[in-house]
């Protein structure tokens, strides 16, 4: 058997194309419900609990989620499930207590930066919005690549010879372009219906995608368990030195030393997830679109279920891929060789789709792929709408002396969607990720999350919170950039040059960013109170 052998046939392509065509028509149809900016950005705040839960699930179970979770399952096996446990416990806490989300929904804002102006000042709103967009676009930067890698791996796509010849003859371009073309195609598809329909088309397509994706996840899990077997999953630990204790800083399934999670990694992820689950803008925008504060709180409580599924099931697929490539030694060697090849697009993310391509039968594989494309689109559309809405509402509109009309706001939002889309394409083509995909997302998210938590939670619960404190907290988040792979190397190079005698890792730098923001917020608020507090 060859590494790229797949059960994906013309029938599966037909299923996928039919699904995509339906999605496009929904986008066009939903356009007729767009009346004003509230309708475009938060669906007129009409969402009730079941619809909100279905669309939140559609948004939060993205293909990128499936890819990074299964990659963690493949690389860190069962130990990576500590993230599923964290998400479950944090959402349970927020859902039961209403911490932050209840009061935030009571403020009736449409975006988090809008709250910054309501509580602090217009300047805080604009700075907060800029930080949010920078962090968000960086965070989305690898979505396209992950989606395209899934499609290439599962379909066994190989670049036709005429295309390679054309690129060499016309542009003197010698690298593979198949993955890049698929990335571009996926982007154009999402841009098309998000630009047209806004949140209403996102809600409708998310509902369809929730069903397709949910069924797809259950079906895939059934095939994975059937293929590997209960004994196979046990042997991952008993015979293949699988990693199952996340407190151990060494991953026993690899030869490298101290490449596991450990207490520091676990603490950093707990902090990131705690803030992200409450205040990550795409999820928060769904919370702000529900009918009331009570529904917002219920939404978080019920989200414990899909959030558990979005982590646990793909991790199981990744563990299944680990077991499959360990048992099929020849395939495992081919995979290692493909990953080691210079300039290769194949990495640890590809293990899961390559595995699924061999165990799921023709026809069903098309449905599963449609489900995964659904997952890709439902996240991408929500994220695009969220960041572009922030640009319009919280950067462009506050900077204008004359208020924008609703139609102008919708127009600016649509332009922003397209601009962000192409920025993502450029970043996805250019940036080579040096860590696993989840770590990249946690680090880029930190740039925003480190600042937003003290500013929002402090604003809601601490009377002495001030604008200066908010500025310092938001700016402190920029130190999170230092946790990106190339920056960590630079920091350690600097430490070696000054003879510091120690090195730092990305988890420590992430936690530093949270600490800097929190300290900046408290010190700034106490030292420079807002005038209304002084009076």
């Amino acid at each position, binding site marked *: 058997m060859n590494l790229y052998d797949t059960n994906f046939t013309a029938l599966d392509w037909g299923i996928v194309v039919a699904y995509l065509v339906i999605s496009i028509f929904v986008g066009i149809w939903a356009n007729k*419900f767009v*009346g*004003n*900016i*509230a*309708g475009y*950005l*938060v*669906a*007129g*705040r*009409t*969402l*009730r*609990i*079941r*619809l909100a*839960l*279905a669309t939140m*699930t559609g948004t939060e179970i993205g293909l990128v989620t499936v890819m990074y979770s299964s990659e963690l399952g493949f690389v860190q096996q*069962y130990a990576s*499930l500590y993230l*599923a*446990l964290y998400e*479950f416990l944090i959402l349970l806490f927020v859902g039961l207590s209403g911490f932050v989300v209840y009061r935030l929904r009571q403020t*009736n*804002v*449409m975006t988090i930066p*809008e709250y910054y102006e309501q509580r602090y000042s217009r300047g805080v709103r604009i700075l907060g919005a800029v930080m949010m967009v920078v962090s968000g676009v960086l965070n989305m930067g690898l979505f396209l690549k992950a989606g395209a890698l899934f499609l290439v791996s599962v379909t066994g796509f190989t670049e036709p010879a005429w295309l390679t010849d054309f690129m060499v003859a016309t542009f003197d371009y010698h690298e593979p372009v198949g993955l890049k073309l698929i990335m571009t195609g996926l982007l154009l598809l999402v841009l098309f219906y998000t630009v047209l329909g806004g949140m*209403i088309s996102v*809600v*409708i397509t998310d*509902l369809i995608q*929730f*069903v397709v994706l*949910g*069924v797809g*996840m*259950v079906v895939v899990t059934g095939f994975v368990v059937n293929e590997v077997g209960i004994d196979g999953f046990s042997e991952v*630990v008993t015979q293949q030195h699988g990693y*199952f*204790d996340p407190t151990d800083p060494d991953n026993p399934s690899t030869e490298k030393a101290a490449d596991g999670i450990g207490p520091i990694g676990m603490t950093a992820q707990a902090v990131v997830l705690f803030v992200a689950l409450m205040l990550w803008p795409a999820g928060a925008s769904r919370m702000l679109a529900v*009918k*009331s504060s009570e529904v917002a709180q219920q939404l978080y409580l019920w989200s414990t*279920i*899909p959030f*558990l*599924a979005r*982590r*646990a*099931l793909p*991790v*199981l697929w990744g563990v299944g891929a680990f077991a499959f490539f360990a048992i099929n030694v020849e395939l495992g060697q081919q995979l290692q060789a493909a990953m080691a090849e210079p300039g290769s697009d194949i990495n640890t993310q590809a293990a899961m789709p390559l595995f699924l391509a061999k165990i799921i039968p023709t026809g069903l594989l098309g449905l599963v792929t449609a489900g995964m494309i659904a997952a890709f689109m439902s996240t991408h559309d929500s994220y695009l709408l969220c960041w572009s809405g922030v640009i319009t*509402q919280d950067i462009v*509109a506050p900077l204008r002396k004359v*208020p*924008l*009309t*609703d*139609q102008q706001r919708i127009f600016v939002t649509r332009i922003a969607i397209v601009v962000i889309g192409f920025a993502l394409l450029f970043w996805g083509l250019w940036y080579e990720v040096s860590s696993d995909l989840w770590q990249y997302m946690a680090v880029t998210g930190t740039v925003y999350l480190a600042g937003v938590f003290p500013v929002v939670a402090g604003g809601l619960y601490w009377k002495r919170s001030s604008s200066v404190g908010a500025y310092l907290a938001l700016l402190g988040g920029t130190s999170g950039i230092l946790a990106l792979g190339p920056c960590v190397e630079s920091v350690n190079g600097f430490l070696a040059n000054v003879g510091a005698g120690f090195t730092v890792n990305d988890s420590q730098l992430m936690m530093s960013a949270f600490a800097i923001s929190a300290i900046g917020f408290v010190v700034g608020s106490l030292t420079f109170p807002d005038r209304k507090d002084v009076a």
Partner: protein
Amino acid sequence: MTAWMTLWTILIVAGGLGMVGLLLGVTSGAVSELKETLAELSGEEAGPETEGAAQADSP
């Protein structure tokens, strides 16, 4: 089986069963709520043209 593996097994089983339960319990209700949402949006008069209008719609 260690305590860790017991915990991970519980999480995986709960995730799988939870997804099935969610699909069965939410889908039909969500479809009828979507119809109500679209009906509300269709019946909505064109409001004032700034974000204040959006806030006026909220409870």
